[in-house]
């Protein structure tokens, strides 16, 4: 309140603009993130969690795919309703995580706005698809979504590679989208390729217990659900962003 009054000329970036920006980021991230989190959780519960619970039957030994002299096992997941508390946890964590994605996405919108690019629902959709590529598709190329019971390299190594891949891909996409000229494009491609040229950490043996059909379906479904939720988040966040402007 005090400092604008002592000024003779209006400031180039008045405090109210920053308040509006914060409100715009907060509204986009919170509302779009909340809705995308609920959407993602519902899709996961419908399409992904049953496969995960089915895989746990193999993990626990209740079902076996290869036994002496036999190949093959029954298909079918335990009913979802047997573990409602567990699914509430999935809903809650999705809401937290997707609001987090929403804040990062809206921070990106704000950076773009400073460069004169105004985000609306359709541009938001593109941003959301970029988020899907950076946070789901690119890391899955090296470390596919894991069915429970999968044996994998050391968790710390995988998390490090995962984070490196996400950051490199996001930066690479940003260079390609906002850079000017072929050098930026080439730099973007190099950044996106680098984690895969280095290679994700993997074991030198296979230990999987569950049927391969289940693992394949799980990976594809996890990516599909993620794509749908990212598209939803981008569309909703972009729409709210343009309304709050």
């Amino acid at each position: 309140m005090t400092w604008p009054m002592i000024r003779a000329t209006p400031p180039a970036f008045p405090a109210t603009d920053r308040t509006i920006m914060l409100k715009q980021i907060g509204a986009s991230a919170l509302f779009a993130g909340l809705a995308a989190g609920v959407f993602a959780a519902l899709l996961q519960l419908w399409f992904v969690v049953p496969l995960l619970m089915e895989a746990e039957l193999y993990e626990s030994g209740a079902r076996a795919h290869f036994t002496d002299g036999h190949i093959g096992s029954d298909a079918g997941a335990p009913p979802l309703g047997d573990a409602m508390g567990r699914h509430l946890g999935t809903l809650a964590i999705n809401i937290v995580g997707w609001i987090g994605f929403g804040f990062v996405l809206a921070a990106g919108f704000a950076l773009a706005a400073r460069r004169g690019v105004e985000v609306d629902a359709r541009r938001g959709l593109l941003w959301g698809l970029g988020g899907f590529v950076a946070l789901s598709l690119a890391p899955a190329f090296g470390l596919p979504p894991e069915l429970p019971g999968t044996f994998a390299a050391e968790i710390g190594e995988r998390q490090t590679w995962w984070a490196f891949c996400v950051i490199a891909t996001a930066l690479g996409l940003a260079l390609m989208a906002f850079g000017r000229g072929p050098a930026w494009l080439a730099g973007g491609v190099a950044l996106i390729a680098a984690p895969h040229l280095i290679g994700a950490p993997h074991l030198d043996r296979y230990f999987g217990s569950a049927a391969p059909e289940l693992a394949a379906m799980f990976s594809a479904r996890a990516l599909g659900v993620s794509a749908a939720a990212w598209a939803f988040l981008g569309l909703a966040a972009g729409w709210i962003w343009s309304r709050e402007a």
Partner: protein
Amino acid sequence: MTTKTIASSGTLSEIATIAFAAVFGLGLIFAAGFSHAGGMHDVAHDSRHATGFPCH
């Protein structure tokens, strides 16, 4: 001169606002995707697997 100073401090605090939003978002993502604090791993187990985060 004065306007320039004010303008750059305005730009700075805009960038600070954006950085705050990004760091806050990354904190939520870390909690949902990576944290093993308390019972976080168990509660987050299914959504981590389903989202493709390295889980355990």
